[in-house]
């Protein structure tokens, strides 16, 4: 154990990031449990259990997309995939389609258990839900491709992905509504959240599932346009970063290294 501890401390950056990650996790969930009922009501007109239920369900729907991209486009299999000459988006979509369908199906039991046993109140607009999921999927796949492109080059978890993940835990409203940041940090702190793509993923899904939004309402349209803007930027950016990583790796002859 002493040996393992010593070994762990030699990976200084890794050790620091792990500790920071744990502290942020504890902090955010602690706050959630104690204080967030009112801001949830203010933002979504709902209760905390419903808010959390949708958050957990969305996490289970969105994360497989990220992992799917990273699992399919990794240095272990990348050479084989590139040798097929198949278009990368088609390959990725084809490979994660089942994961996404399965995740969507597993979403239903969450909602059933939440509403039946914990009295969660879900007020969805089906079209808005589909739209929110589509925008969320595009945002997360863009982020995953950026991360994968950097990983192909660095052969390690990149600092950008790490920073995004840490900021998500604190600012993206996974465990508490973002407006609550104005109370616990400083007034106006929640503005930071709206620059994070993950905030839009959770927010749009919650708007679509908790508030029965009308898609003709200009304020709702604006919300969805905000998320769509992130998707429109991140998806092509992810594609470019991925290919930049692949081509740099091809020039340096490290494509199949891991």
């Amino acid at each position, binding site marked *: 154990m002493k040996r393992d501890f010593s070994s762990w401390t030699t990976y200084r950056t890794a050790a620091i990031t792990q500790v920071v990650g744990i502290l942020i996790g504890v902090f955010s969930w602690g706050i959630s449990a104690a204080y967030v009922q009112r801001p949830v009501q203010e933002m979504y007109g709902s209760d905390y259990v419903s808010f959390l239920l949708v958050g957990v369900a969305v996490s289970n729907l969105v994360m497989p997309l990220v992992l799917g991209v990273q699992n399919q486009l990794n240095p272990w299999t990348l050479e084989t995939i590139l040798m097929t000459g198949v278009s990368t988006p088609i390959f990725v979509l084809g490979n994660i389609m089942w994961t996404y369908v399965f995740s969507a199906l597993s979403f239903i039991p969450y909602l059933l258990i939440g509403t039946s046993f914990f009295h969660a109140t879900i007020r969805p607009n089906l079209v808005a839900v589909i739209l929110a999921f589509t925008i969320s999927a595009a945002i997360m796949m863009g982020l995953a491709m950026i991360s994968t492109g950097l990983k192909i080059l660095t052969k390690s978890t990149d600092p950008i992905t790490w920073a995004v993940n840490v900021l998500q835990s604190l600012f993206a409203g996974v465990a508490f509504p973002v407006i609550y940041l104005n109370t616990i940090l400083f007034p106006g702190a929640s503005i930071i959240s709206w620059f994070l793509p993950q905030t839009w993923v959770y927010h749009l899904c919650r708007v679509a599932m908790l508030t029965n939004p009308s898609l003709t309402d200009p304020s709702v349209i604006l919300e969805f346009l905000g998320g769509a803007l992130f998707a429109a930027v991140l998806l092509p950016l992810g594609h470019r970063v991925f290919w930049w990583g692949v081509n740099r790796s091809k020039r340096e*002859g490290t494509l199949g290294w891991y």
Partner: protein
Amino acid sequence: MNMGYAIETVNLVKRYPTTSRRDVVVIARGPAARGTVGSISAILGAIKGSRGPFIEALKSVNLRIREGEIFGILGPNGAGKTTLIKILCTLVIHDEGEVYVNGFDPKRESGEVLKNLQAVLPESRGFNWRLSGRQNLEFYALLYGLGDAEAKERISYLLDFTNLADRADDGYQRYSTGMQRKLLLCRALLRNTPIIVFDEPTTGLDPASADEFRRMIIDRLARKEGKTILISTHNLQEAQELCDRLAILERGKVIALDTPDNVRHLVTEDRFLQIVFVDALFGAEEKRFVKDLEAAKNVRSVSAEVNQGKRFYGLTMRVEKDIDLAEILRMLAESGLRIKSVNTEEPTLEDAFNAITGKDGSLARSRGQGGG
């Protein structure tokens, strides 16, 4: 470029950075670092890229491989064989010079190149262990854009072609190394490209499977289907058996390029005589006999095979190719030694390879040691 050639390289140069590669290795190989954030300075270094120093993996390589030819690339480790193959497969981008695969440039037209060339790389991955061989091929057929009926027909043909049909519906995890290699070949052939590249095709296979694989390459791929085949190998006997022509790469340079027979005789036109006796004491008379042989016409050198008990049991003679063997046989008969066998041997590809790549400075010495 010239469409008469399946593959053509002109002054091809590839350089690899040395420093950034080392940094990347440090990040990648640490077991505790896998899946975690690596050293930030090393990561930033990897993203920024290296400005040198560089090593030249390929130095002005010129090759022209004809359509329908079986062409071998030989060379010791680090000679640049894999780099060359990966450039052709569009997996590495070259720095200078030109490359054409059926007239298409791998750097700019990778899609077209991959419609003309597929590779069987031993470290190749991408098969799902839980699916059967057939299901794995169906997946790749889909990626290649084959229609259902076409895919079914092509897969059945390839499974028969590689003698895998009986085990096609077994899980991939149950396949032996030889069967896995055959499935790799099936995958490479799915697209029916005119050029197939093999990197160390029989590495890891037992002698019977290796022989079966070689026969498949010659009899079916080359003779029956008329494909152009490029093989990179360490196995010199395999290269001699399979290849119409071959190139020897040494530290990124082509140092020999010809048919296996011509390469064998590139270093020497000489032959070797191996004579085995019923052993005798290696006394003064025998020593004089060896000197007489050395003085005979068209004999270059003679080495006596003497064991630790000073028993004289054989001779290795290096002789010119047009020697009159009758004279040598007469001298042997008059020596009184009882002869078990006399064999003539031509230089092998291994002799030539060792001499060309400088692994062995003296061909005769290599032979002499081998015989003793």
